[in-house]
């Protein structure tokens, strides 16, 4: 057995990485496609304020963080729904408000710097058995929500008005999505830390969007990629003795860069092949036009406009 698996703390950290990697990007598909990635950022800062409150009051951190993110998620959604604030403005208010609360609390209570650091950037050593149970339950709730509301989530993501006219309860679903985004952050903050959790929610989704087609496949691929980058990042963090948040996100970004480079090269290649082909066909068409007086018309309807 490799040395890394001989330590119980490392086994816990790997299990936590699998849970986080499987849930955060799968949920992220719906946030990215609805252009709500900033929601993850805003709620992760709210989670940070929750962490600061919990450390100050010596309460159980995940519960306080979950309560804080749930409260913020419901408030943001209500403000948007009632059009009291534009969507991005509501997110900005909560993001900076929560960060300000966290900064104030951290400066009041000096002395929890090392614990706070582990919540900010993740930690290999920090995952306890209690944390793991807590993360397992939340991950189950998130997966159950996604399975039960798979059609509704897909429809709302495609077009909220069409979904509403199809009989989907859009407001209820938006609330569920916002609350579970908070839950996802609470689950993930032990592994990647609150400051980098947004990256784990977004980057595997961007990779999937490049390499696969179909909504269901995108969710599954994002989840698989999430597990891969979270576990790889955690293993690198162990051997390099660095904060896992950084190594997980850098692993994800490396995969993204590789995939984008391949895709770019393929497009360039396809373009040059395409350019060469008309030259040949133009030559043969010239004969055809000359011989038969024919002209060809391009079917515009068949052209993609991506």
């Amino acid at each position, binding site marked *: 057995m490799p040395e890394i698996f001989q330590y119980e703390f490392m086994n816990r950290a790997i299990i936590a990485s699998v849970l986080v990697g499987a849930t955060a990007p799968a949920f992220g598909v719906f946030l990215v*496609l609805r*252009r709500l990635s900033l929601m993850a950022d805003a709620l992760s800062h709210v989670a940070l304020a929750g962490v600061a409150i919990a450390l100050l009051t010596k309460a159980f951190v995940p519960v306080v963080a979950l309560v804080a993110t749930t409260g913020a998620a419901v408030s943001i959604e209500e403000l948007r729904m009632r059009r009291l604030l534009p969507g991005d403005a509501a997110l900005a208010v909560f993001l900076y408000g929560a960060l300000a609360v966290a900064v104030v609390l951290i400066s009041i209570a000096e002395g929890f710097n090392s614990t706070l650091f582990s919540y900010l950037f993740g930690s290999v050593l920090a995952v306890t058995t209690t944390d793991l149970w807590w993360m397992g339950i939340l991950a189950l709730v998130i997966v159950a929500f996604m*399975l*039960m*509301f*798979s*059609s*509704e989530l*897909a*429809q709302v*993501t*495609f*077009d909220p*008005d*069409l*979904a*509403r*006219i*199809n*009989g*989907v*309860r859009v407001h209820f679903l938006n609330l569920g999505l916002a609350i579970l985004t908070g839950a996802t952050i609470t689950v993930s903050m032990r592994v990647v830390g609150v400051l980098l959790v947004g990256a784990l929610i977004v980057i595997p989704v961007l990779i*999937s*969007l490049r390499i*696969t*087609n*179909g*909504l*269901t*496949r*995108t969710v599954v691929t994002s989840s698989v990629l999430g597990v891969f980058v979270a576990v790889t990042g955690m293993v690198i963090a162990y051997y390099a003795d660095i904060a896992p948040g950084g190594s997980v996100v850098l692993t994800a970004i490396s995969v993204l860069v590789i995939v984008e480079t391949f895709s770019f090269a393929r497009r360039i290649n396809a373009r040059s092949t395409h350019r060469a082909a008309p030259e040949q066909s133009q030559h043969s068409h010239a004969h055809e036009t000359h011989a038969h007086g024919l002209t060809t018309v391009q*079917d*515009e*309807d*068949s*052209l*993609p*406009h*991506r």
Partner: protein
Amino acid sequence: MTGRISPDLNHDPDETESHKYTPPGVNTLTPEQIPIRFDETWFSYNSEPVVRDINFSITPGEFAALLGPNGSGKTTLMKLALGLLKPTSGRVLLFGVQADRFTDWHRVGYVPQRTQSTESRFPALVREVVNFGAYSGFSPFAIFRRRQSTRVDEAMEMAGIQNLANRRVSDLSVGQQQRMLIARSLVRKPDLLVMDEPVAGVDAAGEEQFHSMIRRLNRELGITIVMVSHDIGAVMREATTIACVNQDIVFHGPVHQLDARALSSLYGFPVDVLMHDPEHTHR
């Protein structure tokens, strides 16, 4: 027969009286049989009314076109009819039920001008989107149930997109996206199909294909159609009735009754209608 508008400088638009039209047989129908009914409907976004005192009904089997200049409230009227907006005063009934409390959504199909998702890197396949039309309410185990593939296949065939089933939505042309959205609404076999400028951005061939499909849905399957359009020529060829909207209803009636006075009052400048048919051209 085609129609087009051209300036008629001798005509004074102020002479035009608002046209009140009661569709034949509307008084013998029960409220549940009337697809859409506006009753003294007003709507304003802030304090300025966008829709003023609208009273009209769409009867079963009608192919109604909504005409009007930009900002005249056509899309707002449609959103009111679909319960996406609530009237400031008055009421809007969808099959006899107030639109914002309507639940029988399988009877209604909606084709928007464009969706936000078709403009981005949306990964869904055409078949997945068309399958949204088969949705019949929340069911916790829906993901494990077999999809209603026959209905989805039929709808895609009707819309002429069966060969696009496994293409990514964001790879489609504008015309193909429109046909996909129509297929999506046909899966539920609706009694009423509401469309917002469905041929905007579609080329001439695609437009003709679209109109022949809509003609079939209306005449052969008896689906009531309400369509917002800017294409007066196509509307006069295809629709059975026209509602000219400019905050209120300027004209509502059969296509052949639409005249230059109604169009002048609609667009706010003198307009002449030239009607063409193979044998005669007249004003």
